[in-house]
């Protein structure tokens, strides 16, 4: 019977989703038909170099430029112009036998077309229907499920939801977040799993596991007993080794029920005097999910108990317990523990340690490398199979008693799920689903869950819906405003207070809205904004996309990568909570680092795994986003720094002025010929851009990247570039340059100061990025006035981050559609 029910439910969900898909935005465009005037520089260029073959008399290649539309929001037209740009840029056109334009002339035309293409793209993406549907990102979906049902949902798990596509890093752009039919079943399965966990039909099966030394490592228990040390044996875990004592292979754990599990590990963590703290990681390999990570050190005789809780789905999972610290390779047997030896204490065990093993401690028993000494691992759970509140549970229980109560319960549930009062026809439809289920013989609880499942598969839950046929433009409703605000700052559904203010139609009042923003920014949930926005704005998900070459950067590991990302996010969080000036994003004398990152930056006096605010000195060569490891890494390729990428990133992310795309026929940088002196990347680039048409763009891009050549591909400070090709010593780095406006700088520090002096430009760019995130759409020319007003409004106070966030929420732009 169950499969039939499941099938029926699946059909129901798919039908609902299909219905909602039918309501997705069509291809009709808000800005369609808008044309732009050809720039003054373009008209003579086209007449002189193009129209002879692509004009009234001749249309070579079936292309006529004098009648080509200038509506760049039309994708077909944009494609034609992109083709024109590409051919001029690659010098394919004009052909060789025709007179050629100067590089400056060509460059001007290319830039003009590139700007128009960008604006056209924005216009297309920001097109608004009478009713706008903006899908929740998968992170928002998971947060909403947690707040609605009280259960965790892990969207990144293989059984979760597909990764959200992004537009220049932003993962919330409504026109980009689509729902393909192939993913419909994923949403159905996600909703069903969440409901089953929240409302289990039977008491959940639990597990309680205790692994001692025998279970973790194995060994001769009989011998241990004979020696009288059976209760003293511990497990030494070498760096890079799993608790089992070898390659980081996982343990298969059978989790009987989806839910939250509690993990406890008792251990001592041995830190070498001048080395790193050992790092414990627990990683679900089949889910590609880090369940727990902590760097710590403890005295050998004072073990500590690490405790964590994590949510995991029912089933068999491969969980790896690892001492993730730098050390020798564990591949030879010398680099790992041996179960034939019984470890008790460093001093006692040193006697029995194999002489051919790598040296773990010195003659005094002081660690030479970070390692762990584990006593046990315990796992129990699910500890809270359903976090649904008692009140909710009672409501659901009573709802199964009669139709009136069921209707009331579903109305309440759908209202919360839709983030607005459920309409009677919507409630009736849900009640009918429940009735149909009851009629087909389902138990009342099952029938109610079917109706709730339909709610969670509804377009009004999966999408943020704004507008109506009667109200295509203008102010958003208080309900819509509550959702906008909540998803902007909390990445989840509005709480009771916001919904209450919406209900009483007060939320839009400036004073109330201001106090709500302040309340929300002080709430712990605002950390989601402080995490998600910088991650998307700065495109932090690209960190580690090209894993650094282990031979060139052996010190790079997952912990360093996580610490780099954490620094940038925590930096933003500090800026937000302290309401600091935007210029501190560009140049500052502080940062947020932990011991791992401090070691990477060569800053002394920082201990512990937690990020802490550190005051920087000039000789630290850090301060601001541009010298943070995360940014320097994401603009590199794993082998070497990429000055052009770095420059492009600054233009695009900091100043919102992306350069035109490079032509398709760019030749790769050639290695230094044999016998020639070693050359820095800068020297090679200089030779590379001898072509004047390339140089015109690179003059604007390259200085912004070359200024940070003192930082290698993982953000490590250096004064010379390690070069393989060529003869002689490694060349010294030159980070000096000149901005497009003629201002000169000697190195990255001076450039940072110059950029920070351009506070107005950066503020304008930042506000546009923030508005893109908040409004889930690209900004167009129509938004320019509101954006400029917001920038001007904050200039007086020096562009303070929290003030800008509040100003944005209080602006018409945020409250209108």
């Amino acid at each position, binding site marked *: 019977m169950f499969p039939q029910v499941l099938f029926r439910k699946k059909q129901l969900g798919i039908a609902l989703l299909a219905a909602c898909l039918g309501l997705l935005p069509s291809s009709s465009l808000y800005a369609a038909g808008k044309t732009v005037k050809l720039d003054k520089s373009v008209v003579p260029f086209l007449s002189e170099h193009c129209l002879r073959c692509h004009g009234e008399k001749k249309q070579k290649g079936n292309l006529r430029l004098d009648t080509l539309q200038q509506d760049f929001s039309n994708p077909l037209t944009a494609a034609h112009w992109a083709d024109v740009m590409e051919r001029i840029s690659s010098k394919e056109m004009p052909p060789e036998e025709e007179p050629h334009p100067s590089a400056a002339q060509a460059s001007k035309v290319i830039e003009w077309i590139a700007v128009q293409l960008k604006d056209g793209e924005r216009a297309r993406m920001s097109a608004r229907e009478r009713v706008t549907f903006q899908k929740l990102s998968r992170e928002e979906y998971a947060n909403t499920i947690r707040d609605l049902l009280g259960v965790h949902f892990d969207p990144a798990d293989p059984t979760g939801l597909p990764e959200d596509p992004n537009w220049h890093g932003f993962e919330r752009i409504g026109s980009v977040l689509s729902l393909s039919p192939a993913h419909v079943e994923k949403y159905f399965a996600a909703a069903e799993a969440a409901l089953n966990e929240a409302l289990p039909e039977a008491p959940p099966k639990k597990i309680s596991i205790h692994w001692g030394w025998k279970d973790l490592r194995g060994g001769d228990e009989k011998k241990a007993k004979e020696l009288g040390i059976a209760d003293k044996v511990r497990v030494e875990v070498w760096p890079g080794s799993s608790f089992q004592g070898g390659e980081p292979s996982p343990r298969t754990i059978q989790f009987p029920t989806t839910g939250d599990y509690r993990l406890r590990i008792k251990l001592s963590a041995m830190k070498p005097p001048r080395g790193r703290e050992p790092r414990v990681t627990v990683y679900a390999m089949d889910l590609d999910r880090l369940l727990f990570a902590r760097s710590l050190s403890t005295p050998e005789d004072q073990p500590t108990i690490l405790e964590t809780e994590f949510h995991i789905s029912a089933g068999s999972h491969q969980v790896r317990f690892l001492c993730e610290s730098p050390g020798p390779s564990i591949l030879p047997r010398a680099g790992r523990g041996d179960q034939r030896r019984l470890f008790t204490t460093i001093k006692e065990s040193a006697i029995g340690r194999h*002489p051919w093993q*790598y040296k773990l401690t010195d*003659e005094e028993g002081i660690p030479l490398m970070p390692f762990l000494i584990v006593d046990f691992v315990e796992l129990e759970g699910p500890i809270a199979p359903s976090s649904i509140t008692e009140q909710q549970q009672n409501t659901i229980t009573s709802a199964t008693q009669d139709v009136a109560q069921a209707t009331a319960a579903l109305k309440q549930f759908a209202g919360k799920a839709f983030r607005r009062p459920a309409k009677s026809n919507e409630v009736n439809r849900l009640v009918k689903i429940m009735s149909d289920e009851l009629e087909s013989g389902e138990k009342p609880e099952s029938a109610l869950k079917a109706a709730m499942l339909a709610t969670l598969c509804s377009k009004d839950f999966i999408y943020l819906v704004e507008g109506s046929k009667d109200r295509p433009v203008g102010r958003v409703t208080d309900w819509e405003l509550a959702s906008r605000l909540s998803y902007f700052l909390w990445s989840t559904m509005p709480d009771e207070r916001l919904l209450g203010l919406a209900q009483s139609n007060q939320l839009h009042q400036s004073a109330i809205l201001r106090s709500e923003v302040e309340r929300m920014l002080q709430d712990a949930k605002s950390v989601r904004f402080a995490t998600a926005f910088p991650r998307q704005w700065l495109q932090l998900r690209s960190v580690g996309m090209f894993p650094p070459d282990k031979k060139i950067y052996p010190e790079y590991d997952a912990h360093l990568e996580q610490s780099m990302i954490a620094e940038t996010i925590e930096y933003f969080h500090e800026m937000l909570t302290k309401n600091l000036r935007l210029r501190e994003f560009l140049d500052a004398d502080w940062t947020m680092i932990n011991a791992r990152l401090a070691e990477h930056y060569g800053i002394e006096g920082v201990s512990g795994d937690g990020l802490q605010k550190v005051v920087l000195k000039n000789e630290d060569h850090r301060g601001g986003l541009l010298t943070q490891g995360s940014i320097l890494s994401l603009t590199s390729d794993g082998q070497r720094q990429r000055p052009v990428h770095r420059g492009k990133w600054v233009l695009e992310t900091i100043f919102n002025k992306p350069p035109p795309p490079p032509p398709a026929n760019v030749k790769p940088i050639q290695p230094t010929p044999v016998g020639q002196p070693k050359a820095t990347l800068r020297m090679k680039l200089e030779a590379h851009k001898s072509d004047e048409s390339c140089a015109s763009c690179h003059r604007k891009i390259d200085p912004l990247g070359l200024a940070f050549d003192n930082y290698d591909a993982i953000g490590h400070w250096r004064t010379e570039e390690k070069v393989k090709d060529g003869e002689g010593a490694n060349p010294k780095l030159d980070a000096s340059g000149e901005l497009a406006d003629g201002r000169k700088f000697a190195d990255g520090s001076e450039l940072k100061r110059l950029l920070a002096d351009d506070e107005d430009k950066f503020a304008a760019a930042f506000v546009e990025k923030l508005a893109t995130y908040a409004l889930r759409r690209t900004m167009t020319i129509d938004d320019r006035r509101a954006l400029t007003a917001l920038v001007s409004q904050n200039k007086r106070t020096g562009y303070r981050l929290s003030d800008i966030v509040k100003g944005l929420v209080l602006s018409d732009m945020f409250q209108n559609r």
Partner: protein
Amino acid sequence: MVTPSFWRAAVWTSFLVVCCFTKGAEGTGDKSPPYLLQPGQFPTQDLSHAISGELIQLDHLNRTGQLRPDRRNDQRTDDYDRPLLFTLLPYGSMRYHGAPAELRDIPLGTHLHGKFYWDPKSGKDGKGAFTQAFLLEDDFSFDESSKCEWRLDDVKLDRNTISVTRLSKAENKTEARPVIYKITPATRVWKGQGFGTLKDLATNQSLLINLTLCTLKGPGNATDIWIDDESKQIAAEHQIAVHRVHQKERGLAGWIDAVDNEKGLVTATLFAGFDPSLKDDFKIKGRVNALVSETSLRSYDQINDRAPSELVAISPVPVLPGSSGFQLIFKPDNLLEGFRPHNIIRVMSGTWPLDDLPWEERLWK
């Protein structure tokens, strides 16, 4: 007519004279307490105790064996021939045919001259004995290192004897009265590049002689006689080649003087007892493989357990007994647990072939 009793008397007298060539031999009446070796230190001077005897058992893997000591006239007859169980010190060495050797190179029955140190825990009732072998060498090597040879005074093939007188080459004079050794059809005569026969023996030849059955039934039986310089040289060259191969396959033994854990540097002094030309294979900044070893000089599994290292420095150090005077400082890619002061290691030049040792030699099973 010489009677058998005369022979016996003559032989014994000659033997006792020979015994006295070795310094501090048992029975010399020296009652001073025996010198005790200090762990991890070479003896500051040669204070060993000389004992000669015939190799009657050997365990070449663990560098142990037994000698049947030569009989001495200060012994009670009950103590005659009581086997001496010995263990070669880690820095103890052997010489055979005038060249460095290993125990495996010495045939059972070979008469050896030994230098021993007192082991307070060994011997009868564990009360101590001279069982720690510092040097063992065959008659060939002993005579050569003493710069002595035997002048052949007379050959009596019908009586199976040769009469020889020990000569000091340095002083060009005889050191004792003639000795009569027995020759047998099994006695090998080495001549030029090959074998000779007993008929090649001629008076006034300068011989080197290896013996067996010494003092049991006379001064001893000659097992091998080298009658010319070429044959002596070939014997030495062959043995040195054997030992070079052996050392290259297993590494030169030494012990660790110091470990700098922070810099990852190991300082080790190599033991004596190898062909010095092997030192030329160690170059600063070159690669070496270091193997942790036991006091028996056995290593574990030299393919898997070696520590590839960079040779950082080579320093000459004072040549104490047992030391080669050759000190290396190397930086292993990874320090090993056994790299602790006073521990024994073997070091192979990175240019030497690296291969598995036979199963029985490896400590790793």
